[in-house]
Structures are given as C-alpha cells and as structure tokens.
C-alpha cells in the first residue's frame, strides 16, 4: 500500500497524522508509509531517518562504550536459559510485542535469554510474584496454554492476528487459567515487557530507526535541539516514503 492510500498520513510528519492516539481505533498506519533505510540497518529496514546510521559515529565513541554497544551486533549463539521447547514461544512473543514481522530482526529473544542466563536481574521482586526468570517461563507456558485452549495450537503456530489477540488480552491483564493463575498477570506483563523493550532499544539498529544520536562521549553535542538550528551537521531530518516533488505535482 502506498502512502497515497492512507488518508491523512501522506508526507506530513509535522501534522502527526501517523500518531496512533490521533487515529481511529488508536491503531498506527501500516508501516508502508515509511521510507526504506538507505544507509545502515534498521529493524525490518524501515525508519524515519533513511540516511542516518548511528554507527557512522563509532570512531567518536570511547572504547568502553564501543565494546559494549558493538557486542550487540554479533550474531547470538544458542539459547542458554530457555529450553528448546520454550524457544518458539519466546521468539514469537518477542516478535509480536515489538512488531518484528520480517528480517532483519533485532535478536530480542536471544538478548532476553542472555540476561536471564547471566542472572542480571533488575533489583526487585514483587511479593506476589516469582523471580523474573521464573515469571518469564510461566508467561511462555501461559501463552501456549491460552493458544491451545482458544485456537487448538501452540502460540508460535498461531496466525499473526491470533497471536496479537492473545497478547492484547495479556496487556490488559485479562488472561486466566492454567499457568496464569500462578501470576499477577498485569505485573507479569510489566516484567516481561521491561526485558523485551530494554533489549530492543539497546540495539543500534533501533537507534537508526528512531533517529537517536547515540553515545556522545567524548564528542558531546553543541546544537541542543529545536528545529533545523538545533541539529548537528551529522544528524539528518526525518523523512517519509513519498517523493515531495511528485506529491506537489499531483
């Protein structure tokens, strides 16, 4: 679908017509209104800054930061914490909550697995909840339980629409039965989403997608935001898929 077919989106980032809460049903437009990434990599090769690659600045980062960030670009090994049986559900869940429906994907499932395997937890556990690694396991079992009882197949085997239905109920804290009865479901949602979001938005590909300037030590920033004058020379402005010249001549 081209941007022309989406009433109200077009080339107009400024008007905010793409913002979910300003649209009927609070649903975003299909990502086809976005330009393909021309420089560097973004998840699914879509983004608002097609000519911006945060990794172009890697020579200006300090060594400690470089080491930590670039390690995320290495291809992940086999899972260490989750079992082979849990893997399809974990991967499917991470894909749905971050809308990763095509390659290239940020390996969210592997990053969550590494955090659990290394025991790098967040420093608190709700009194009515198990520890985070156990919460993850129970959530995965719960997703399969709900998928089997509602659709007769595992969560990973469900269609995209059915997976989204289940996750939508999970986000509302409304799932019950089986493994869900061992959890405070609303809190379980916040525990697993905390892990998934921290993994995805720590990845430089996601920074390219959103136009985030990334690490800036020791270089720093001189132009402190606010319109064109607030942009550093290496930062590019946002863009859409529509050719503005053709748009005008139509």
């Amino acid at each position, binding site marked *: 679908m081209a941007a022309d077919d989406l009433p109200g989106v077009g080339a107009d*980032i400024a008007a905010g017509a793409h913002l979910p809460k300003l649209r009927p049903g609070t649903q975003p437009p299909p990502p086809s209104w976005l330009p393909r990434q021309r420089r560097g990599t973004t998840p699914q090769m879509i983004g608002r800054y097609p000519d911006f690659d945060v990794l172009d600045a890697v020579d200006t980062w300090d060594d400690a930061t470089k080491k930590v960030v670039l390690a995320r670009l290495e291809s992940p090994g086999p899972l260490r914490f989750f079992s082979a049986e849990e893997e399809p559900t974990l991967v499917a869940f991470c894909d749905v909550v971050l809308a990763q429906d095509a390659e290239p994907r940020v390996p969210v499932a592997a990053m969550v697995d590494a955090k659990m395997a290394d025991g790098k937890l967040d420093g608190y556990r709700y009194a009515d909840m198990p520890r985070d690694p156990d919460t993850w396991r129970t959530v995965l079992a719960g997703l399969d339980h709900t998928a089997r009882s509602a659709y007769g197949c595992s969560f990973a085997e469900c269609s995209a629409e059915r997976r989204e239905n289940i996750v939508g109920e999970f986000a509302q804290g409304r799932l019950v039965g089986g493994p869900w009865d061992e959890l405070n479901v609303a809190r379980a949602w916040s525990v697993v989403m905390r892990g998934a979001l921290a993994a995805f938005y720590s990845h430089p590909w996601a920074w390219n997608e959103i136009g985030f300037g990334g690490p800036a030590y020791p270089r720093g920033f001189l*132009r402190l935001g606010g319109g064109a004058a607030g942009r550093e020379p290496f930062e590019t402005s946002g863009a859409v898929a529509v050719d503005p010249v053709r748009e005008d001549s139509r």
Partner: protein
Amino acid sequence: MGTFWRGVLKGAVGPRDNDSRYLLDVHRRDLPGEATMRRYADDEEVDLLVVGAGAGGSVLAQRLARRGWTVVVLEAGPFWHPDEDWVSDEAGSHQLYWTQDRVIGGADPIELGKNNSGRGVGGSMVHYAGYTPRFHPSDFSTFADDGVGVDWPLSYADLRPHYERVERELPVAGQDWPWGYPHRYPFAPHPVTGAAGKLREGALACGIEMRVGPVGIINGTFGNRPHCIYRGYCLQGCKVNAKASPYVTHLPDALAHGVEVRANCMALRVEIDDATGAARGVVYAREGDGEHRRQRAKLVAVACYSIETPRLLLASTSKRHPHGLGNNADQVGRYVMVQGAAQSAGRWPEELRMYKAPPPEISSEQFYETDAARGFARGFSIQTVSPLPIGWAEHVLADGHWGRALREYMRDYNHWATIGVLNELLPHPENRVTLADETDTFGQPVARMDYTLSDNDKANMAFSAKVIHGVLDAAGAQDVLTIQRFAHLIGGARMGGSPENSVVDADHRVWGVPNVLVSDGSVCPTQGSANPALTIMALASRLAERLGA
C-alpha cells in the same frame, strides 16, 4: 557574603576546605589516590567507620578526616574506574544500580534498582539526574503548620549554612531561586534546549513560573573538572566529571586526608559489646569470600540509605538489642518514603531531540506548599526530564501501547519533550522496610519494602497530573503520553525527639546506643518535593560539624 558579591563572583568561588576539584586529573576519570590510599588493619581501632560510600557517608568521612580522624569507609559495591567501567549506554549501565535481591509489597509496590538504588563508590549520586534543590523552611514543620507528617527536631536555619557550603562544593548551577528561602547559586544557569524551551513556554502560558536549574552540573570549569559536554547520559554515570557525585566532590579530598575506602565489602552487622552496650565495630564480608571480618572502630556511622540502613540495623541483633539497633519501640524501617514522579510527554511538529543535554533542566516549586483550595496537604514540584530510548519505550508502554503502535511512537521520539512532577508523599508507619524470609549470597536476610499510598497522596498526584497536562496543552502539544511512576527514597530511620517515635536523635545518634550514628537520607522525617541529594549531603555536613569538624 552579600548578595551583590555572590552575583559578581558567580562561577569564580569554590569551597575553602575541600580540594577535590584540584586533585582530580584533567585527562583521566579515576579517583586520584587509590593506589597510595592509607590502609588500616581490621584490628586497628579507627576513630570512625562509615558503612556506605555515598552522599551521606562520603561527606562525613571527608569532613572528619580533615580534622585528623582515622576513617575507614566500607562499600558493598566496586571501586569505579570510570574510563573503563562506565559507558554512554542505558542497558550497559546495569552495574551502577543495587540489583541484589529485594522484595516489594504493599498496595503500591515501589520499583527499586535503577530507579532509585545505587551501588559502588559514590553511591546513587553516580547515576542521579543532577537536580539539587534545597528543602523549604516549611518542610521542617509540616505537622505544626498543616497537621500532616511530623516536625523535624531541627530547623531550616540549622541546615542553611551547610546547604550553602555544599552548593559551593558541587557546585550548583541555576537561576536565582525565588521559592522557599530565596537564594542564589554559585554557578550561572545552563543553556536551555529546544525541548525544555517548549515546556517553559507552556508553563508561562499557564501562569507557572519556571527557573533553569538547580543542577549539580558545572557550567564553566571548576578546578580540573571540565565543562559539561551536553551528551545527555547523566543517569549512566558522568564520564566527563562535570556532574557532581561524592566520587568527584568529596572522596578525592577524603583520600588525600587518609581515608580508606574499602570497596566490595558488605557490612553484615554492627557488633555490640554486651558489657557496655556500645558498638565495637562492624562485621563484614568481602565479595566472593565467605569469611567474616571485623573492623574495629570507636564510632560507627551507618550510611546505606533508606533500605540497606534499616536492613543493617535490623540485622544487628545482640543480647542488649534483640530486635536490632534503635528498634526497642519498633521504629526501624518505618516511615520510608518515595515521591510521586509521574511524567507526561508532549508532541510537537518540529524535531526537538530531547536526548541532548542533561535530563534535568528547568523546574518550578510554585506548588510546593499547602494550598487549601487544592483539597490536600502539602504539594509538588515540576521538573523537565528527558528519557533516552529505553526510558522512552517504558513511557510509551505505560500509556498502553505495544507492537506496531509502540514502534510508531518510538520512531517519533525526536518530536517529543517530557515534563514530570515530584509529589510530596506523606510518611506513614506501615510504609516500611522489614527483613524477608529469604537470604542473599552472604546468608543475610534480604530487605522487603512495603508501600501504600494515602488518600492525600492520591489527591496530590491527581492534581499535579492535571497541571502538567495543562502545561503541555498550553504549549500546543499535539498528543500526550503519560507514565505513572515513583522516584527517590527517604526515611526509614527517622530523627526525632524521643525513642518512642524515631530511630535517631537530632544529632543522628541511634537511640540507646552511645556510638552508632545514621548519616544518610533515612534520617529525614519528611521529604518535601525536592530531590534529596543536596539535603543528604547538607545533613552529613552538619553532623560532621556537631562531631567537631
């Protein structure tokens, strides 16, 4: 110094009795003096043993070392080497936080970890945002004035000289301050970013006065500390040395005066001599070593903050103190507080790129005190903030978005600016830290923190949410996303006039134990709606003065 001279000398006056800024290296970020640091044997009775190398413990150690005291500071976390250990990265900064097991309960459980808990030399000021407001005079008498909270056993006048002294040491940058006790700051305000500028426009349109600062981030140079480079990673540890934390403001001077900072050492209990009832020292264990050691000391200062201080006092049981130190009336761990810290983000047509510059920029204390017309006691402050991508993702999620909607809002990151509140939540005895049944790797019971909001708290939070939403509307925001959250810790070992309703007296001495002090934010009976760091340092500075420094 008069107001005129304060203005003329802005940016040119440093503290007389703290050389930390000159001891730091221009080209390296390590704490100078680690290699040549004086060391004390466990069986050497030092004058002062401090537990916790954060805001309270470091200031106390620095002051007393300058008076010739022998001082050891035990710190559970690592001795940082910022050039190698700290990164310009959100997820990579996990080790700065206290992430050991803790349990949270109550009707409104408080998230800990990166939100409010530090670990390592420098404490949580290593990753605080940098706001350094003072408390208001009214904070010290909320019960007398409004019938809520409790009155402090000391007054604003007792703390004021120490606020001024610590503001020179950090040093604090900001506009002249019209609220509370009006005052000026030693450094000029920072430039305002496009994002914060939008929010200020909206506030002014609503009749809300906002001022730049106050932040413990230098605007200019300060000894060997360079100017801020506006990279925006204050919450990940300042690799520049521009943001104040004890690591750069007090520990260099402390080490130069013979303080030993013994890192990776977890205090397990304060050891009491059953014959005298006085503390003999502290039993501790090194990370990765099960052996229990005991450092002897004439005086022990517990400075582990609002969760670990009660935990240590409760774990320090003995024949004379079967319920823990200072706990004969069941007061330890009670009245722990947090501040309501909801944030709302607004969207504008132009790019604002809020990731630039320190997250703390401009603030207002116009709503700080009680206004009967609002229908609740006490108030809140307003502060601009600016989440980095992971923080922004949590913000978008909290507004109810996931999947494609979340990705869409995330892609719009550069068009948003964020404003937050700090609500004064009132102290309540059932909001408390206790020991849980489970134990940590040292065999020590872990802390459990229970928290439940009162009706006054909820009314305050609901009112303030409308105010900041109004600011965004007045500034022409096209869309608004909101996250409910909490920030900061304070209380849990509060000071007071009697052992029946407090844990320490006005001089921070634990009731019933002659030589154990508490020197951190847990002694605060109320919290105002100011960020606590400056007050914790000022209290430690006053305590040092009371001890003879």
